[in-house]
């Protein structure tokens, strides 16, 4: 394979990473933006999405695509409901204090992980893709499912964007993000907004995981990487900026694909970390964040 096709392949792989990552990172970014909560348990919501996809695959008879569709709907709902419970039982009682909630979500992370270990076990298990159509380019064949992942992520992100900019719920979330006391003074039930935002953020991570698990495997520790990468993306993009998060996910995903393929995955992580360091030093508010 020549350099051109090789680069194309690397970019396509990077695009898939970017797609999954952007779903997880947008969830993290929304939660931080609206609630000022740094959710360290975000990666575990991702992991739960994958694990639920595995359980659903075992429960739903018939073709793989039916189980996949069921998981795509169920996992975000179940994980969203769990997140709503975490919000009501933990975050709300801490009054959403930015520091206390970091510690608390570390606790939640650990609990969810251990629960997954107990009920799901320590093994990595595959989940079948909903279809295994491959398409042939002149230089190599490529998984049609991976392209589907990209398309699905784009569709979901578009829906999130439309929801945030064009709907009443989005307006309420954006107003709450800017000034929660003034939002209250206009009749916005801030606690309900927070619960919904936390559930939405977790649901997006779970959805990303359902898309991701057929090209990987479900494992109870699989939340680490998405958490770390989501933080990297959110820091580079600017905390609370949806647009910045998307751009940064694309940059990190594509560069990860290309550098991993041409050099090594380790170098890709090193460079991403370096980029974070540069942003923190030279533009601490992130590429698209508002100045603090």
């Amino acid at each position, binding site marked *: 394979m020549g350099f051109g096709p090789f680069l194309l392949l690397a970019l396509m792989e990077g695009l898939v990473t970017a797609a999954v990552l952007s779903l997880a990172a947008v969830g993290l970014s929304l939660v931080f933006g609206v609630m000022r909560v740094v959710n360290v348990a975000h990666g575990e919501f991702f992991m739960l999405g994958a694990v639920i996809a595995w359980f659903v695959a075992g429960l739903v008879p018939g073709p793989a695509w039916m189980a996949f569709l069921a998981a795509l709907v169920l996992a975000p709902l179940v994980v969203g409901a769990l997140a709503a419970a975490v919000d009501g039982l933990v975050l709300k009682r801490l009054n959403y204090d930015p520091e206390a909630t970091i510690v608390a979500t570390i606790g939640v992370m650990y609990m969810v992980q251990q629960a997954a270990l107990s009920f799901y076990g320590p093994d990595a298990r595959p989940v079948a893709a909903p279809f295994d159509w491959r398409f042939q380019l002149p230089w190599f064949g490529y998984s049609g499912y991976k392209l589907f992942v990209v398309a699905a992520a784009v569709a979901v992100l578009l829906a999130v964007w439309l929801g945030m900019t064009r709907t009443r719920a989005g*307006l309420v979330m*954006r*107003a709450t993000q800017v*000034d929660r*006391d*003034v939002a209250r*003074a*206009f*009749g916005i039930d801030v606690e309900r907004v927070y619960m919904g935002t936390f559930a939405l953020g977790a649901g997006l991570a779970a959805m990303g995981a359902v898309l991701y698990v057929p090209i990987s495997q479900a494992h109870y520790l699989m939340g680490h990487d998405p958490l770390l990468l989501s933080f990297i993306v959110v820091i580079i993009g600017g905390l609370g900026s949806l647009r910045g998060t998307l751009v940064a996910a694309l940059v990190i995903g594509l560069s990860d694909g290309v550098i991993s393929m041409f050099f090594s995955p380790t170098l890709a992580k090193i460079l991403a970390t370096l980029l974070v360091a540069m942003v923190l030093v030279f533009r601490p508010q992130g590429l698209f964040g508002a100045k603090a």
Partner: protein
Amino acid sequence: MLELRGLTAGYGPVTVLRGVDFAARAGEVTCVMGRNGAGKTTLMKAIMGIVPVSAGTVMLDGQAIQDLPAHLVPGKGLAWVPQGRRLFGPLTVAENLDVGGLIRGNRAKVRDHVLALFPRLRERLNQPAATLSGGEQQMLAIARALCLEPKVLLLDEPTEGLQPSMIALIREAVLRLKAEGVAVVLVEQRVEAVLRMADRVAFMAHGSVEEVAEAAALHPGARQFADFVGV
């Protein structure tokens, strides 16, 4: 209309308001004066339910509202124009007005009515609020509150830092609201503005209302201004 009795409130362990008695009537402008730190802003926040009330009552048309969660207070007919405006900066002018009217039906009609009061905002509907000039931002802050169609409007230093022409516009708006029967509570530090707008003046010091005077009985050299504002 609005009546406070023995209102005590503060931030966590810090008590700021110590037994405030205060009243505002429909179709009147009640000004609140007092030095920095006297508790004027805290008073407005306590009425809106944003600062927790530990004792005393806030009565609106005979109904006690001091224990309502903050987001249910505006539905009772209270609106607040915070000190420093506190607009939703990244949101457009139109979106700020939408948030203002969120809990009201009939939004389009109310918005038209409000924009008639501040025609300059109509040209800027799709602009982020943060890009408006200071005076325009203040108009928007008032317009946003008016989208609630309040019975009682709390205005916290709305003319702070504005040019005279803007101040005149805002004064006209306040007088218009008064004529429409709104109970206006206005925190204002400039004696001459107070004398032109107020029906009554409440003077605050150390977290309580120490004295209430009819505006007609006050003049620029009145003792109260020297005592409570230091001019």
